[in-house]
């Protein structure tokens, strides 16, 4: 039995919605806030989206989407092309291999898992930037970026759950 038009549209929405959320987060991440000091430590919010969907619904966030969102982060942020594309791919890869530990666990456990992943991404991005610049890059902003990313993850999760709930209702 071939899927009806609505089922197809629904399937499309299933993939598009998480990607759209990640793109929106990438844009919000660079938007001008006028809050002193925030720009230098603003977390790369799409990392949280990749983490969430790779954990709970990896099918809705395929690797090419993670790559494309990472590329957008690079293009918007002025980081060398490919740095965050690679970082998001690695996040997806790592989370996919570890997701069975997160499924059905209390939020605090998942949150600490995210903290580990965020720390790893910070380190990876830092290393890639150092290689690209040919010198050691300042570490302090990356540290604050990490702390901020961990701090906002619960709010991000609320957003992701809301989007996910909408998708579930639709199907």
């Amino acid at each position, binding site marked *: 039995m071939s899927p009806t038009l609505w089922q197809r549209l629904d399937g499309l929405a299933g993939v598009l919605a998480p990607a759209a959320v990640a793109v929106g987060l990438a844009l919000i991440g660079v938007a001008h806030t006028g809050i002193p*000091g925030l720009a230098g430590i603003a977390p790369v919010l799409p990392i949280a989206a990749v983490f969430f969907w790779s954990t709970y619904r990896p099918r809705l966030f395929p690797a090419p989407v993670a*790559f494309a969102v990472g590329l957008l982060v690079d293009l918007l942020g002025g980081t060398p*092309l490919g740095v965050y594309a690679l970082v998001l791919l690695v996040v997806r890869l790592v989370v996919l291999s570890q997701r069975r530990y997160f499924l059905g666990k209390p939020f605090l456990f998942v949150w600490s898992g995210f903290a580990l992943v965020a720390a790893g991404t910070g380190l990876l991005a830092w290393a890639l930037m150092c290689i690209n610049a040919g010198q050691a890059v300042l570490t302090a902003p990356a540290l604050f970026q990490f702390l901020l990313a961990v701090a906002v993850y619960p709010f991000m999760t609320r957003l992701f759950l809301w989007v996910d709930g909408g998708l579930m209702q639709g199907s």
Partner: protein
Amino acid sequence: MKARSGSDLRLSGPLRVAVQRLSLAFLVALAFGLMLLGKAETVLVERLRAGVGDTVAPVLEALSRPAAAVGEAVERVNGWLALAAENDRLREENARLLNWQTVARRIEAENRVLREQLAIVPDPGPAFVTARVVADSGGAFARSLLVAAGSTDGAIKGNAALTRAGLVGRVVEVGARSARVLLLTDLNSRIPVVLERTRARAILAGDNSRRPRLEFLPEGVEVLVGERVVTSGHAGVFPPGLPVGRVASVTDGGIRVEPFVAIDKLEFVQLLDYGLGGILGAPGARGRAERAEEP
């Protein structure tokens, strides 16, 4: 959950895993390839960035309005908490006076030169565009701004980005409606400067921190904390004498300069065309030629 894969290509288990692994390897290789490409083929990457900048600039501008309102509200609360109202007024006045000081110094220097060479024809004033800052991007590893003015508004690659207080950075990419300003605090920013008191030349090198470093200072030059640092005009990127900052600290670890501009509070910047293409090459020079033909 299962039903949602309805439109997916149906492949048997092992084959699908193989295809997925292969595509993942391809994407990882592509990411590394792009990093290399960005190092070698900068024009293509620049064009791509400019295109994306053009596309998202209107969105970011819309986003930045409420964010700016929130930012202003935060600022206001801060104002109530401290003696900020008075403080702000004085700071503004101070900035204005510093501005005048800059003008006076420049005029003084110009005057001296003019007296030496009588009947000199003065340079035409620079053409400028004022642009709203729509994104301060870069996160932890880069320092740049996206502004909502592009080539259609007269922005040109190589423009100096300034505020009344001083230098902010320079324009490195220009799209039709947006431009990217590399801040003087960025890791890749190198600006030829002179110390105003001793006229010693140096390079102001950004390292992503708030205070860039002074490098390649000649040996034996005495540097005082609080000394003014201005552009030297060498390398032809900026005209000489643009105010940059003030020496903030002199230690064994190096000399740090505090920029005059509070870079994280920028709302608008002016992109000035001094007609100096400099080492940035053709685009600036072409813009100048076009402009020269206009009148």
